[in-house]
């Protein structure tokens, strides 16, 4: 039987039952669209996380304290990462552009009658500005000297400054942060929200000030001048591994520990991205499987309708057999009908999926990235589902006895 003829017959059969065909296809449409949208959402999340990591600054090395991981009784004989380690890295290693240490806290900020609670207070070092790629809009950022002397100064994010002072000039004003008075010395230019962090709504102050005034005393006493993390920005990324090696040696020496008993851990941005990617890939696969289940459900819908169709058209099958259709012809006819249903459903689903992913990205705060391979995957799965679930009804039709089929009421 001519393939064109098979297709024409299938197409006509689908066209004769438009509503039913559409409802049957709906399962496949939803399945394909779901696969595309799910993958778009998870890829969007992945991209967001990657951006977030990159937005920390570029060419970064993270030196993390591993005290918390091993606990006080751990094999580590070192004292852990301390603030002076950061200074040592900055002074002794050539490829280092800047070193940043961060300590965050939250506090209520008051100025006049305005009181803002839960404002993020971030203590750091002057290099923070360079490493995080921030610029000062007015006034100035705090200096190394102010950090050393624990001078009570504050630099405001742009939206925070606006909330507190409106259109007035904040420079030189005194604000109450928690129970400590800080003098505003600068306002940063607008940076926006990167990942989860709104850079414009924060208050920036020297690390020493945060450690002294905004860290709970018990915690502070226990911690001493220990830091959780040192961010090192390097000049030449080609020498990344050499630099890591140098930092490693320097810190081992300073802490008087060996590689086995090291109380710190050095990672790079690349490492973190790789870890994140494997996590999000697992997440993405999970979503794709869930969406794939709806495709299978759609396939069962097709099988169901094809079985109904075979029963309904038993006489037609008998007639076709009596005028010369072989079992193979009948099988092809019904299989191609199932395939056509799933392929047409797949095409509609592709359009709906791409449109849906785009709309989802526009309407919600979540980012979506349409992955071309996901479209292909979804479409091929739809066709495979059609072939798989169409085969059984088609085979049932092919095995009908022509006499019984003709007698069927």
């Amino acid at each position, binding site marked *: 039987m001519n393939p064109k*003829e098979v297709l024409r017959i299938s197409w006509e059969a689908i066209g004769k039952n438009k509503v039913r065909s559409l409802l049957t296809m709906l399962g496949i449409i939803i399945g394909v669209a779901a696969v595309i949208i799910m993958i778009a959402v998870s890829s969007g999340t992945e991209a967001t996380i990657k951006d977030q990591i990159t937005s920390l600054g570029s060419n970064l090395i993270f030196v993390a304290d591993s005290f918390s991981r091993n606990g006080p009784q751990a094999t580590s004989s070192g004292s852990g990462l301390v603030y002076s380690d950061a200074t040592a890295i900055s002074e002794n290693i050539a490829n280092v552009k800047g070193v940043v240490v961060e300590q965050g806290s939250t506090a209520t900020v008051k100025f006049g009658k305005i009181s803002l609670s839960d404002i993020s207070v971030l203590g750091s070092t002057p290099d923070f500005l360079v490493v995080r790629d921030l610029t000062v809009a007015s006034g100035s950022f705090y200096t190394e000297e102010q950090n050393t002397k624990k001078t009570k100064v504050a630099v405001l994010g742009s939206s925070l400054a606006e909330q507190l002072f409106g259109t007035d000039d904040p420079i030189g004003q005194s604000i109450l942060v928690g129970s400590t008075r800080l003098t505003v010395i600068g306002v940063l230019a607008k940076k926006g929200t990167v990942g989860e962090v709104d850079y414009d709504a924060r208050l920036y102050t020297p690390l020493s000030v945060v450690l002294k005034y905004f860290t709970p005393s018990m915690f502070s006493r226990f911690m001493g001048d220990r830091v959780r993390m040192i961010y090192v920005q390097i000049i030449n990324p080609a020498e990344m591994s050499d630099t890591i090696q140098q930092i490693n040696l320097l810190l081992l020496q300073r802490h008087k520990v060996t590689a086995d008993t090291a109380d710190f851990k050095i990672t790079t941005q690349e490492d973190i991205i790789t870890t994140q990617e494997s996590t999000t890939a697992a997440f993405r696969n999970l979503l794709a499987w869930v969406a794939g289940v709806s495709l299978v459900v759609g396939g069962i819908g097709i099988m169901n309708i094809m079985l109904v169709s075979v029963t309904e058209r038993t006489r037609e099958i008998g*007639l076709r057999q009596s005028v010369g259709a072989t079992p193979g012809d009948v099988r092809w006819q019904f299989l191609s009908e199932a395939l056509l249903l799933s392929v047409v459903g797949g095409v509609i689903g592709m359009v709906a999926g791409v449109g849906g992913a785009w709309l989802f990205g526009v309407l919600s705060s979540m980012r979506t990235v349409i992955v071309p391979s996901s479209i292909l995957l979804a479409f091929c799965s739809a066709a495979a589902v059609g072939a798989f679930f169409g085969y059984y009804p088609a085979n049932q039709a092919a095995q009908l006895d022509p006499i019984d089929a003709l007698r069927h009421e």
Partner: protein
Amino acid sequence: MNKPRTIIETRGLTKIYGMGDASVVALEGVSIHIEAGKLVAIMGPSGSGKSTLMNILGCLSTPTSGTYLLDGEDVGGLDKVQLAAIRNAKIGYVFQSYNLLPRTTALRNTMLPLIYDRTHKVPREKWEEKARGTLESVGLGDRLEHQPQELSGGQQQRVAIARALITDPVLIIADEPTGNLDSKSGEEIMRLLLSLHKRGRTIVIVTHDPIVAQYTERVIHLKDGRIDTVVHNGHNHSLPVEKEAVLGGTLSVRGQ
């Protein structure tokens, strides 16, 4: 005149359904011989085996034992695919309930057997032309694009006859062709079959209606799976009165 070609030649056709104690003998030792160009009726009450015989003659099923030569070819040992090819090339069916594809034009319905012709006797681009010609020959030249639900019963049966004719088969099998029609349409259909017969078609009509059988040259009566009597109309002088009516052309076919 040459000896006419034999279309149907059966020897000792037997069909048994089921196995062992539950088996039913539907047909037992039926031997018939039908030459080309004959118009033959097979009659018999329900359960006489006439449907079974028709199905075997139509290559829709195979006998349990006995041989069947269709147009000189033994169809006994053929598989499903080969039987389908034989049905396509050599047999045209006319059913009591027409069996047209719903929501499909007369033209497309008529074309149907050509789709399944593996020998491509008629090339695809000639299908429509051929179907049109065949429909015109059964008097439906003005109904080509009509769908079954837009046609009367008689017209639907004409489409079915056109469909049976399109592959130019050696044998037409009509199963109660007037069974669903009123007497006037039934008579028209019988006239059409008679005119096909006059043009040399070999036609076997299966019926339980004696009046339909009157139109034929020979009536094979089946009873309990065996041939009971064979009546040769026109040679048999003990014909019932209706025979005269047939010759007089006033007979009407009984409707149902």
